């Protein structure tokens, strides 16, 4: 099974360790690929490393919906994976309604509710925007806070199951000690209410298919409505 972790922070963004250290550790954990995050507009060329698939993930941190759309158009030309820093309902909804976006990260961040409703999740299904389950958010919270976060995530996962919207599980690691193997990440998705098979897909084929599709787009094999077959 090829496991991916689409949100890993290195020293290029807010992480402590270098890309090489993160990649070495990810290999040891059995991950097939990791998404190294850089924040828009500082998109950095990420070096390729043998034995692991390094994906360039770009995180957008917009102030409002219109800001999100303009940032997404610019970043899409370079990013293999486009992540949106969620938390604000307006931004969450705009991200779900934008087909350029790949993953909406932690929609429940800093909120008392889950940050998503049925309208957002329906749009996420139509535009194939994945809703993220963030392992770091669970691990770094404590007692009552963790309970609230878990219940919000459960609610979002339930909505995603109902409307068949994609879910991805990421570690969101800021140090190499925050990373986890793909199977352990997917066990969190299972506990949040997904079936075991679907939970495993959240760290394997869902991120993998998104990466393949975006790489084809960037290399010019896919345009809107056209795909070149070789």
């Amino acid at each position, binding site marked *: 099974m090829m496991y991916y972790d689409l949100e890993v922070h290195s020293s290029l963004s807010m992480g402590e360790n270098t890309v090489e250290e993160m990649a070495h550790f990810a290999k040891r954990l059995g991950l097939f690929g990791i998404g190294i995050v850089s924040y828009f507009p500082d998109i950095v060329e990420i070096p390729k490393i043998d034995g692991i698939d390094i994906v360039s993930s770009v995180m957008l941190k917009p102030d409002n919906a219109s800001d999100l759309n303009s940032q997404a158009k610019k970043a899409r030309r370079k990013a293999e994976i486009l992540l949106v820093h969620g938390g604000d309902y307006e931004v969450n909804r705009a991200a779900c309604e934008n087909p350029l976006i790949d993953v909406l990260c932690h929609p429940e961040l800093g909120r008392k509710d889950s940050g998503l409703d049925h309208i957002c999740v329906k749009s996420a299904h139509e535009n194939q925007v994945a809703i993220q389950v963030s392992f770091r958010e669970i691990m770094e919270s404590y007692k009552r806070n963790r309970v609230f976060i878990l219940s919000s995530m459960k609610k979002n996962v339930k909505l995603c199951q109902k409307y068949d919207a994609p879910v991805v599980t990421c570690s969101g690691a800021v140090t190499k000690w925050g990373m986890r*193997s793909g199977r352990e990440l997917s066990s969190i998705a299972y506990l949040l209410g997904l079936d075991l098979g679907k939970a495993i897909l959240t760290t394997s084929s869902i991120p993998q298919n998104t990466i393949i599709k975006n790489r084809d787009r960037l290399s010019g094999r896919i345009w809107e409505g056209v795909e070149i077959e070789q």
Partner: protein
Amino acid sequence: MDAPKILPPSLRSQKRYIVFEVISEGPVAYADLTSAVWNSVLFFLGELDASSAKIWFIHNIYDEKAQRGVIKCAHDSVEHVRSAISMVQVIGEAKCIIKIIGVTGTIKSAKAKYLAQSDLKNFAD
């Protein structure tokens, strides 16, 4: 007779053996490892789920050099235990990750597949 008889196999609860490896900054004491895992299980799953997980550390097959060991649990609680174990960040004073290498149905297969401890009786085969 001061103890109940052992139940017949059909009445015994099914179990699984989780083989793990500790990846850490420095060496980790076994006592610190067990207390870190128990704390994590109790915090994350709570007392009720921890009781139904029936967690048991198998001390005698812990490999201190490779930092590999086995935890026994109920067959329907493997994912719960897996996620609770993944919440462990620090053992003693060392930063660490507990990586799960595999899950088996018997201790024998756990030893043979993941701990590289084979039975000398079968050595010639």
